């Protein structure tokens, strides 16, 4: 098992880094540990508009990214440690086999963890880790989160109470489970950096197996970051087709909005509210790209100072 250090907490860079290592180093088993600044990461085939309140996250400055594995939406911050295990694909889907080494390492450093449900790790009945996989070209990427000292209130607020029930769509649904952090369950306290170091010492004990990307390879990671993970096409354009319907009140008046979106492009938009110019709304929204920035601009034109309020009714 070899490892690479991403030297970054930028979520866009780290997702690109992981994909680059997955597709480039095909002869060896690779283990990665990495942490991200606050962000929401959705599965490869998830509907962002259902999984998160995109407008609210945008206001909070929390970016939404799409990863290359399956499964549900997860909240990351610097108290959450992500791990990736890249190996040859052998046989069919088997989370037990992928989780065994990480469980052994966790137990070895004093974390009283056990496998729970199909692909989770728990302490007691509470989840500390979820995982997902991607299989391509005979290689398997198994990766997961490890809630060490994460902001569970933010996690709860964003990923549990933050679902959007106005969306009818296909696509993978996230499961919602009670969670806990690892840190309060340790017999002997340690920092997140120490936790990461001790986990790495278990998984990749030989210092000779700790590698660095070359400058050229890091350049390729940055190109992948900019060309894919920062692109609208990957993050929003891949959202499965859906229909959005919302009713409520806006500027103290009854409000109803509906639109559909296919490959991230809005159609059939209608806003019915005395405080909004419906004809202009339809003209601006139809053909627009689904994303908070674009929607915010449209809402600014439609509602001026109340733009953000309108935005949170539409996305």
């Amino acid at each position, binding site marked *: 098992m070899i490892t690479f250090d991403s030297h970054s907490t930028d979520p866009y860079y780290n997702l690109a880094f992981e994909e680059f290592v997955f597709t480039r180093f095909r002869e060896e088993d690779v283990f990665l540990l990495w942490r991200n600044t606050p962000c929401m990461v959705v*599965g*490869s*085939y998830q509907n962002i508009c259902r999984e998160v309140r995109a407008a609210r996250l945008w206001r909070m400055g929390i970016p939404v990214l799409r990863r*290359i*594995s*399956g*499964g*549900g939406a997860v909240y990351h911050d610097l108290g959450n440690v992500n791990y990736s295990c890249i190996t040859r694909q052998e046989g*069919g*889907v*088997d*989370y037990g086999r992928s989780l065994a080494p990480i469980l052994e390492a966790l137990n070895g450093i004093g974390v009283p963890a056990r496998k729970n449900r*199909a*692909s989770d790790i728990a302490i007691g009945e509470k989840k500390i880790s979820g*995982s*997902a*996989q*991607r*299989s*391509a*070209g005979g290689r398997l990427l198994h990766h997961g989160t490890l809630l060490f000292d994460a902001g569970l209130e933010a996690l709860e607020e964003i990923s549990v109470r933050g679902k959007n029930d106005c969306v009818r769509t*296909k*696509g*993978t649904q996230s499961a919602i489970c009670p969670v806990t952090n690892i840190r309060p369950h340790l017999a002997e306290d340690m920092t997140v950096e120490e936790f990461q170091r001790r986990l790495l010492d278990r998984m990749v004990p030989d210092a000779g197996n700790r590698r660095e990307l070359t400058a050229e390879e890091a350049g390729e990671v940055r190109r992948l970051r900019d060309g894919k993970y920062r692109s609208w096409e990957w993050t929003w354009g*891949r959202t*499965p*087709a859906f229909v959005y319907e919302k009713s409520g009140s806006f500027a103290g008046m009854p409000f109803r909005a509906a639109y559909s979106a296919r490959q991230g492009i809005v159609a059939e938009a209608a806003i019915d509210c005395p405080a909004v110019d419906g004809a202009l709304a339809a003209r601006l929204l139809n053909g627009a790209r689904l994303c908070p920035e674009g929607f915010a601009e449209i809402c600014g034109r439609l509602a001026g100072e109340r733009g953000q309020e309108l935005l949170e009714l539409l996305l």
Partner: protein
Amino acid sequence: MEKQLAMPRLRPEMTSGVLCAWLKEEGDTVEAGEPLYEVETDKVVNQIEATASGVLKKQLWEEGDQVAPGDPVAILETE
């Protein structure tokens, strides 16, 4: 000649998977071994490679459809 490509069984108990992305469009040339589509099952996205070479004549399912193992997924026009 037309050749049908079928959904592989990705694990013994698999009853269906979601065809979540086409990686080739109808009319595209496909080489055997090249990635053709992606299927999600049990939180795994599996990239499925074409098992023959030819021109992709028909995508038999839309993205988001549930497909059972053994079901035909695509029709290739082969030499």
